[in-house]
C-alpha cells in the first residue's frame, strides 16, 4: 500500500473516531443556541485534541515503519489523486457552506450553525480522504 494511501486512511479513521462521537453526542442531547456553551466547547476541544493526538501518533508510527517512503515527495500520480480528491471535497464544502451561511440563519442560530459548519467541514474532509483512497485502490 502506498505511503500516502496509508496516511489518507489514518486521516479518515481519525476523523471518524473523533468527530463521529462528537456529532452523535451533539445530536442526541438538547442544547441551547446560546453562546458561549462551555459543555459543547469542551466536547469540541476533546474531539479536536484527540484527532491531533491520533494523527500525530499515527504519522510517527507510519514514518518509523517506512522511513524511506515517508521521505519521498509526492509523485505525479499522488498529485493527480490529490487534485481529484480536493476538487470533490470542494463541492461538498461549498454546497454545505451555502446551506449554513445562507439558509440556516433564517431558522437557526448560535451552536446549531457552528455545528452545521463543522459538520460540513468534516464531511468535506471525509470526501477528500475517501476519494483519495478510492483512487489509490482503483489504480492498485
Amino acid at each position: 500500500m502506498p505511503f500516502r494511501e496509508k496516511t489518507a486512511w489514518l486521516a479518515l479513521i481519525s476523523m471518524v473516531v473523533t468527530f463521529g462521537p462528537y456529532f452523535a453526542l451533539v445530536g442526541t442531547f438538547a442544547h441551547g443556541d446560546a453562546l458561549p456553551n462551555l459543555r459543547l466547547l469542551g466536547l469540541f476541544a476533546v474531539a479536536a485534541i484527540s484527532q491531533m493526538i491520533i494523527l500525530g501518533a499515527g504519522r510517527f508510527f507510519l514514518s518509523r515503519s517506512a522511513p524511506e517512503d515517508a521521505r519521498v515527495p509526492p509523485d505525479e500520480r499522488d498529485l493527480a489523486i490529490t487534485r481529484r480528491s480536493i476538487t470533490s471535497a470542494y463541492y461538498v464544502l461549498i454546497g454545505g457552506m451555502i446551506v449554513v451561511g445562507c439558509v440556516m440563519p433564517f431558522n437557526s442560530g448560535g451552536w446549531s450553525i457552528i455545528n452545521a459548519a463543522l459538520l460540513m467541514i468534516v464531511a468535506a474532509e471525509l470526501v477528500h480522504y475517501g476519494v483519495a483512497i478510492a483512487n489509490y485502490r482503483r489504480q492498485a
Partner: protein
Amino acid sequence: MIEGSISNRIRALRFHHGEMSQGDLGQLIGVTRQTIASIEAGKYSPSLEAAFRIAHAFNVPLGDVFRWETVRDEEP
C-alpha cells in the same frame, strides 16, 4: 472521439534489463514503486514527461514502450 487504450511493454523491458525492479525504475524516473506497478498494469496513464523518462531509462524510443491500440468501429 477515437476510442482506444494504451498498452505498454514495461514488464518485458524490465526483464531484458537484468530483471530491473519496479522500485529501481521508479527511482530512475522519479515516481514510487506503486506508480510503476500501476502504469505497468495499465491502470494509470503516466504524463508525457514520465513516459519519455521511462523510454530513456530503457534506452528505447517511446513507441517501443507504449502503444496506442485503437478500438475499431464495426462496419454497418
